[in-house]
């Protein structure tokens, strides 16, 4: 085989491989020129070009059933902001396009609110909450009498996060387990002194971490530590 034969063979292979992108017009000038010159002298490639152009037309003409973007966007919003979806928000979404349902819900809502208001005195003495006093921070608590218990935090992973990845995340924040996971999947861990803020920032930045909160001690409450 002569040098020119080898060169021609290589050019043919190169041009053949580039044909699809010659068809879609994405080749740069040098590549396009190479294919143009080769097509002028190669019947095989011209035939292949015709076939591929037809196939490209079939692919471009193929229609697919459209999927509702509005519905999809509403679904992904639920994942982004699940904590902000209050009962009122869900009711609003449901009745947005159904005015008669909206009117009915206003009437129902007013009746329910009135019932709850009248029943409030009966709910006052239903018993002590199961959560021990001082274990959780309440809205009425101020920072003055709050302490973070020994650089301890609670976290909960998404169920889609594999165990191996969970362990990697815990290693990243140098966390040591204080207790085993609760039935609800909440872990209590301790991080090195001075690293709590950075650990919380890292955890809250991870999409697979559903919850990350320090464990507070409320010195004001009775029975607190």
């Amino acid at each position, binding site marked *: 085989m002569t040098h020119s034969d080898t060169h021609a063979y290589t050019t043919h292979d190169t041009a*053949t*491989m*580039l044909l*699809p*992108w010659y*068809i*879609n*017009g*994405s*080749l740069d000038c040098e590549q396009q020129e190479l294919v143009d010159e080769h097509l002028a002298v190669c019947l095989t490639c011209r035939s*292949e070009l*015709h*076939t*591929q152009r*037809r*196939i*490209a037309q*079939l*692919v*471009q*003409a*193929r229609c*697919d*059933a*459209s*999927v509702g*973007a509005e*519905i*999809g*966007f509403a*679904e*992904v*919003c639920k*994942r*982004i902001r699940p904590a902000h979806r209050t009962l009122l928000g869900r009711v609003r979404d449901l009745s947005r396009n159904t005015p008669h349902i909206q009117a009915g819900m206003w009437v129902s809502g007013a009746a329910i609110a009135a019932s709850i208001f009248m029943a409030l005195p009966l709910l006052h003495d239903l018993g002590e909450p199961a959560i021990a006093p001082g274990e959780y921070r309440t809205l009425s608590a101020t920072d003055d009498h709050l302490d973070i218990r020994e650089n301890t935090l609670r976290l909960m992973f998404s169920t889609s996060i594999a165990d191996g990845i969970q362990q990697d995340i815990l290693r990243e924040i140098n966390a040591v387990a204080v207790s085993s996971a609760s039935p609800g999947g909440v872990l209590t861990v301790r991080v090195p002194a001075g690293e709590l803020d950075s650990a919380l920032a890292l955890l809250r930045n991870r*999409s697979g971490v559903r919850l990350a909160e320090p464990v507070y001690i409320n010195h004001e409450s009775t029975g607190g530590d």
Partner: protein
Amino acid sequence: MARIETGNDAATVTADEQDAILLGRIEKQEMAAFESLYKRYHSKLSRFVVSTLGQSNQVDEIINDVMYVVWNKAASYNRQCKPSTWIFGIAYNKARKYFTTAEQQRNVSLSGFDVDVESTGTQAQWMEQLERDDLCTSILSSLSPEHRAVVELTYFYGMHYREISQIMECPENTVKTRMFHARKRMASLAQPEINRN
């Protein structure tokens, strides 16, 4: 090419630049920007995922998984590729993982993602199927998901093989080779129809 008014001067912005602007705003947790990007990409990603998987089940879930990642990882988009390349890359990986999980549940070999379906019928039977089904859908369904992805990205989305290699995270020569095998198979199946026209 769209025109966006910026201050007193009108600027002409390409689609890629628009997407990059939206990603910058999404990084700042702007929901309106996210909604715009979602609607710009929803139909494109739907078609790509349906085409890659060869069926439309779970497409909604996959699209939402993709856009959820876009929302959470907008800060990690480093502008070294086009926004569309970055987003399609996420979609391809999600589709691939879904395919692998589905195949595992059916106890099928995990190599099925890059294996074309062998035609088991005669040419006459194939032509009968063409009369019943859309020609292109029939042809594409015989390809592996990886081959289908290359064909779609090339012929429908008009992408260069360099961009496709970034999306599929494989060498450029691998993209060319996959396309070569895919088009040979497609040509053999579509030849009667092409000759008729």
